[in-house]
């Protein structure tokens, strides 16, 4: 599977598929420039869902209204610029007042063991990271709370 095909499936999964159980992912940008980087895809979401009158009242009473995001960055499978990417996303979260974000790093091939360890050990509270090997369809995710929640929503290879 090509990176672009995967990102199209990921976009579909988040906007109209299983992602709706987590947040209302409603706007998707491709080739999104942020800082010195250009993210392959960026999808923004609100945690409070849409709906008709009763659903809106229920959501207003029970769900906090904050924004979240999912970034995809395929340009650095070796994670040589990981710190820069994380800093850029973190700054974005602060400036735009987003609560948390996912960072998906798809790659048409396997990741090095050093790269896998780097991600597995990441315990950022506001950014969940996952590596997606598109050949073996393996997902390596961070140990943080948002990292552990990612595989269910980003496993969209079919």
């Amino acid at each position: 599977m090509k990176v672009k095909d995967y990102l199209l499936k990921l976009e579909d999964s988040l906007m109209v598929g299983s992602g709706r159980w987590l947040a209302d992912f409603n706007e998707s940008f491709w080739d999104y420039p942020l800082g010195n980087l250009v993210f392959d895809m960026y999808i923004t979401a609100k945690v409070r869902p849409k709906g008709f009158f009763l659903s809106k009242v229920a959501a207003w009473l029970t769900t906090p209204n904050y924004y979240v995001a999912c970034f995809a960055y395929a340009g650095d499978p070796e994670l040589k610029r990981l710190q820069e990417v994380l800093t850029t996303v973190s700054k974005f979260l602060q400036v735009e007042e987003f609560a948390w974000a996912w960072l998906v790093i798809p790659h048409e091939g396997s990741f090095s063991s050093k790269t896998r360890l780097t991600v597995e050990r990441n315990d950022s509270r506001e950014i969940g990271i996952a590596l997606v090997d598109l050949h073996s369809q393996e997902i390596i995710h961070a140990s943080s709370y948002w990292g552990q929640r990612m595989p269910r929503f980003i496993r969209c290879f079919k």
Partner: protein
Amino acid sequence: MRTVAPLQVMNLTRSLIAFFLVSSFAWFAASYFAFRNVLICWPVFAVNVTVTGLLGWWWYRSRYHAVLSWDEQGFELTKGRGHKSVRKWQDFSQVSLVHEGYGRFSVRLHEIGGAYTDIPASDLRLSPSDFRFEVMDLVQGKQPADRVDEPA
């Protein structure tokens, strides 16, 4: 220049249902006020359906019906009667795909100042994702066919 202006079945159905309910309740109220009874019979139903059809069609044409024409320079979007937007692709800096709920998508064109214009891709029966990539190319000043990584 390409032009699309399909019949939007969902919006037309919405208009027809709304006017059927409105005309039904109006008849119930009028007949009760005039005769102290709610008269329901086939001629009344036929008139109700005719009125619904006429008003629903008029409402759909004046409120929802969209016509989009576009070429390499810009686009012209007409929504209903009197809502015409003629813009150039160069007026915009970013393009996004927006899910409006129930599987309906729009392509959103962002200006540098923060304003945006929505093109209702699903209502126009365009493939939202493919049309988004085409618009991205046009906004960036490229010919759509220039993209080498277009999905199959």
